[in-house]
């Protein structure tokens, strides 16, 4: 039977069969605490389910928000009040005296200085500088944490009633449950003529471009469904990709790479990139990475129209590519089961990871750059940890093997197998998706050809042989957007402003490396080299410790003999220290070796004769 509705959850009122099965969409002005009392329900509903879909905007205002500020202020207010009753001109007391409380836990995630790392002893002057830096960092992190308060939007979610599998919830159910605006985001375009489609969302998530194998290329504002352009290039289209803004998009056609504007006018034909199979755009570097059949990975700087680097992967045809949004490293999947990581500054792969026994079919990297999902011909789906170790965290054998995988902004993983799309979710934002239970599944009308989550919308776009489908996936996207960075509602002027700023802040291509934070480190090798050269040039080491010079003493204690004696004493002491240190090291090593030795076999007396 129906359980009593709890105020925190949105239980749709039961209706008669006569009424439309549509559940009443919730409006933001509606109060949470006024659920309509259920009358005599005619019977148990067919499905017991408690769904909740939170579209990004408009938001439910009634949900009690978890306070983002530490509940207990640093200083108890009572004592403060006793001390200083602040009176204003009007005689009213400040209800929140003192500085704003610092959200300690929240600030922790904005800390950049790793204090667990020990640094060598520093002089007072240096220490004061360090202290200043640390104080600045702390203040900045506290400020950032405080401004979290402004992120009012909360991600949506889908919750099954006790024991119910969310994977069994159909798209139609979700569409019924949500408000009209969100329901309008679920649609599918039936385009069977032009074969399997590739699609791409613009960075703001407002625009969608798609290209069919048989030359159909179109771009539209998918929220309003306003078509910006539609052409047929009369050539096979392999991939399509928006450049930095929605005004430009690149299309990988049969022979060469073309760039069109939002009216479908061909702007460029780039013949240096031929037989391109996959396209990726690195937004902060203004680089368009293309992987070609000839085995070349080419980086094209779209801001100046120059090819930055053309790297030969030496692994045959390249058809699997993904970018790591954290460090702008390109991941290429190869037929020998490896995934190679590339940067335009280095001719060889930064790393090579053996992932599968068979060829790699799809690669995806999550937005934090922590996890990589790969699927191979061996029907396995694996999630790798990219933080230095490159070890698989979890793996799962799929009956058909996934041909396409993609990560959402909040870490949901989608895999397309045949005509089925499976979505897995993790526990929280920073956790890898658990492959135990799918979060959602959906069957499409054709075979999946491309998958992409729309940024800032709980929407998954699927390109398949039957056209384009836009699915609702609650909790997929980041609910709060940065209006200065990716503003879905920006006007033309704002876009132009942003374009200029983005161009000014363009990151040079050669800065792409595995650990971007390493750029904030001192180049130790050249530092030491310079030091060496300086020593050679000067003929002595200016930073070296001066040799011990005995102090001058009076009353005959500074005789030559005693001077020599004192010198020797110091020298001997240093020597002793050195010897002691080396002995300790030796002992440690020995202990390690002993530990490493297998203790199973007992040493025999005849071992001494073993050669």
């Amino acid at each position, binding site marked *: 039977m129906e359980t009593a509705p709890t105020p925190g959850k949105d239980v749709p009122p039961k209706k008669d069969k006569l009424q439309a099965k549509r559940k009443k969409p919730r409006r933001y002005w509606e109060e949470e605490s006024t659920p309509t009392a259920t009358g005599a329900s005619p019977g148990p509903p067919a499905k017991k389910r408690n769904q909740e879909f939170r579209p990004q905007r408009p938001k439910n205002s009634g949900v009690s928000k978890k306070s983002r500020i530490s509940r207990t202020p640093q200083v108890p207010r009572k004592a403060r009040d006793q001390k200083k009753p602040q009176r204003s001109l009007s005689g009213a007391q400040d209800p929140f005296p003192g500085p704003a409380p610092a959200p300690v836990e929240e600030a922790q995630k904005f800390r950049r200085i790793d204090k667990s790392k020990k640094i060598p002893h520093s002089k007072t002057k240096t220490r004061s500088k360090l202290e200043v830096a640390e104080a600045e960092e702390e203040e900045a992190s506290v*400020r950032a944490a405080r401004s979290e308060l402004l992120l009012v939007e909360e991600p949506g979610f889908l919750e099954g009633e006790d024991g119910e599998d969310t994977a069994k919830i159909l798209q139609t159910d979700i569409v019924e449950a949500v408000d009209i605006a969100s329901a309008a985001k679920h649609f599918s375009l039936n385009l069977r003529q032009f074969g399997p489609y590739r699609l791409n969302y613009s960075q703001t998530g407002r625009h969608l471009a798609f290209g069919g194998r048989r030359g159909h290329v179109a771009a539209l504002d998918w929220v309003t469904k306003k078509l910006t352009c539609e052409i047929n290039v009369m050539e096979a289209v392999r991939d399509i990709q928006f450049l930095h803004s929605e005004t430009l998009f690149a299309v990988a056609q049969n022979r060469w790479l073309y760039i069109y504007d939002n009216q479908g006018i061909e702007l460029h034909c780039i013949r240096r990139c031929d037989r391109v199979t996959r396209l990726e755009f690195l937004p902060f570097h203004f680089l368009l990475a293309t992987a070609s059949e000839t085995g070349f990975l080419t980086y094209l700087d779209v801001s100046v129209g120059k090819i930055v680097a053309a790297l030969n992967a030496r692994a045959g045809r390249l058809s699997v590519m993904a970018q790591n949004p954290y460090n702008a490293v390109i991941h290429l999947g190869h037929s020998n089961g490896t995934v190679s990581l590339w940067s335009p500054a280095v001719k060889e792969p930064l790393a090579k990871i053996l992932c599968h026994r068979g060829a790699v079919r799809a690669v995806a990297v999550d937005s934090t750059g922590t996890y990589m999902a790969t699927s191979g011909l061996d029907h396995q789906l694996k999630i790798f940890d990219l933080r230095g170790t490159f070890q698989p965290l979890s793996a799962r054998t*799929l009956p058909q093997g996934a041909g396409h995988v993609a990560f959402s902004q909040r870490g949901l993983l989608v895999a397309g197998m045949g005509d089925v799309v499976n979505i897995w979710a993790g526990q929280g934002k920073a956790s890898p998706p658990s492959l135990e239970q799918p979060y959602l599944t959906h069957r499409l009308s054709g075979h999946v050809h491309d998958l992409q989550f729309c940024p800032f919308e709980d929407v998954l776009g699927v390109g398949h042989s039957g056209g384009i489908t836009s699915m609702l996936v609650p909790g997929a996207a980041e609910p709060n957007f940065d209006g200065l960075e990716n503003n879905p509602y920006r006007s033309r002027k704002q876009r132009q402003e942003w374009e200029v700023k983005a161009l000014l802040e363009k990151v040079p291509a050669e800065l792409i490396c595995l650990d971007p934070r390493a750029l904030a480190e001192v180049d130790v090798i050249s530092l030491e080299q310079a030091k060496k050269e300086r020593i050679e040039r000067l003929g002595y080491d200016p930073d070296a410790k001066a040799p011990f010079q005995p102090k001058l003493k009076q009353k005959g204690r500074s005789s030559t003999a005693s001077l020599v004696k004192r010198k020797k004493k110091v020298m001997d002491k240093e020597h002793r220290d050195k010897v002691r240190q080396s002995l300790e090291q030796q002992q440690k090593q020995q202990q390690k070796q002993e530990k490493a030795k297998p203790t199973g076999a007992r040493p025999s007396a005849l071992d001494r004769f073993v050669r």
Partner: protein
Amino acid sequence: MCEKQATAMNVTQAAEGLLALSQQEELVDLPSNHPLSASEDEEDGDGERKHQKLLETISSLNGTNRWKLTERSEASLKVSEFNVTSKGSGEKLALSDLLGPAKASSSLDTVKKQLNRVKSKKTLELPLNKEEAERIHREVAFNKTSQILSKWDPIVLNNRQAEQLVFPMEKEPPAYVPIEHAFHGWKATTPLEQEVFNLLNKNKQPVTDPLLTPMEKASLKAMSLEEAKMRRAELQRARALQSYYEARARREKKIKSKKYHKIVKKGKAKKALKDFEQLQKVDPNAALEELEKIEKARMMERMSLKHQNSGKWAKSKAIMAKYDLEARQAMQEQLAKNKELTQKLQVISESEGEEGEAEEEEPLVPDAVNEVQMNGGGTNPWMFRKYNGDAKEGEIQADPEDPEQLPETVAHEFSESEEDERPVEEEEVLLQEFEEKRSLRKRSELNHNAKPVDSQETKDSNCQEVLSELRVLSQKLNKKNHQSQKQKVNSVAATLQVQGEEPAPEEEESLLLQKPERVQTMEELEQLGKEEYSENKDLPRPVLEREQIERTPRNQLDAPKEKTKKEQMIDLQNLLTTKSPSVKSLAVPTAIEELEDEVDRDQKQMIKEAFAGDDVIREFLKEKREAVKANKPRDVDLTLPGWGEWGGVGLKPSAKKRRRFLIKAREGPPRKDKNLPNVIINEKRNIHAAAHQVRVLPYPFTHHQQFERTIQNPIGSTWNTQRAVQKLTTPKVITKPGHIIKPIKAEDVGYCSSKSDLSVIQNNGKQLSRHQQKKLKKNSD
């Protein structure tokens, strides 16, 4: 005054000389002295002549033409005013002629002496080399200038360390207009205004009442923190100087050698005399005052029974005097002294009186230092303690019996000290209190240290009694302070434990800087301590717990990493062939599930068959081996085949030689993928990225890790809030447009009032021990 005397003396001397002269004339009848005309000589007789002489002498009394030119009796060859011709010509004047006058007079003696000295002196030393002289000059000049400039050091340091400097530096005081002034002569005219005023009146808002309490006003007017600090530093300096002088005086007093003391006394007397002479020349008025002092000392001597052989010592000596010559002499000396002291003085040449005076009055501490004390509001230990016990002071004053009970002289002194205190300005008081707060921690020790090492203590026993009372009071006060101090320390420790490093000192700072609420009495002080303590007590476990909570997830996160590290080598085979669970509930809620296992098995079979040929793992391992090999540093073989032995085709250099000339490459750091079997990480350096990295350590840093820590926090607006960006990128120097930036002045920094103090320090800077100098520096910082 003195000059007048001197002129008077001259006049009297001249008169005496004249008298003597006239007598001589009468006796010796020297004709040569007086000009007489020949004709007169012939015509007139003796009486006439005498009369004439008398007239002339009288006329010469005015001093103008006392000496007439002598009558030339013989004609000389050359008459010139430049040549002295005595007898005829050809004879020259010798020095010895001048030296031997007819009569030895005292005035000539000195001349003789001088001449003798000139004679006895050997040749003048050569003047110093020009360069050397210049060098010395430069050195002196450098020292002087550096001393003068050293007073700017703290200011310069401050400015260097300041986060931001705004030029021009002088700040205009905030124009604060009390609201009653602002409202003066203003009336609500519009209906809206009237309405507002009505509302205000209804709520009894203080529209016309003075909004500032006198205390607030005082605090507004009070000197700024900087000034107060500066002032305090000066006072500390002065105190240090004083203690130094005191120590020195004590040390010197302890010396037992009589001879030393005699010498010192003589030296002092001489010096005093010299000083007096100098003073006489420079400032006759001051000299007169000095004279008066001497006169006063004489009066005192006359009043007292000192040096009149009536003391204990004198009586004992009197008994001995009969037999002992020395004792007798000593007594006589004393009597002589008495005489000297009681003698009325007119001419100042007598130095003894002064000496005695000096002996008594010479303070152990130079005047300058004492002046500083007075200005500074009692570095005198007595006063100091009283100031500290500001709270107690009121009580003492309130107690009316105290001064009455004291003997009169003491009361007098007491009041004097009070008077000294009074004029100290309000600033001083404020400063004092500020200091009090600041030095709460150290105070107890300081007070103990500052305990009286006073030479004045011995001076007056009566005074001592009073003072001892005072001291008891102050000690009590100190104890109380100490207790509260302890409490405070405890509480601070508690906060330290709870909050970590930073907040505690900050809090303390804020506490110290709090101005408006001053701790007036001991009770308040104690209360304050308690309050804080309780505050900190309340301060919370929760924080600690939270911290722990925060830490734990981190550890958990870290844990798996460590594990992976510990695992030596993961078998690649295992890694790739791990049995991963197959997905059960796949997308399709149809009947696939039942068949799944079978399908799975089939597929595995198929895959195995498909990949039977290409061994992916072996290939990868091979590739990795090659990569490792390629990346290894290579040995350098420097052997020259055929050098030192037979060479030719098929002959190889000997193993020994090869070993000798092989330079082994140093083994680099272990590869990053050493323990990761399925990964090849490129070890090559990204040169292009390295070009963007920092390659020179900036100045104060000695190790790259230190510097890295300072640049780890991004400052861009992409990663920070706007306010944070503004704060992180504030310019170091801001110049207000349209303002003239003038060079810094001493007045701006608050040096003008204390110029004398500074100069004292500069003069005595050399004498201070190194330790003290350090201390001073610390204080001034």
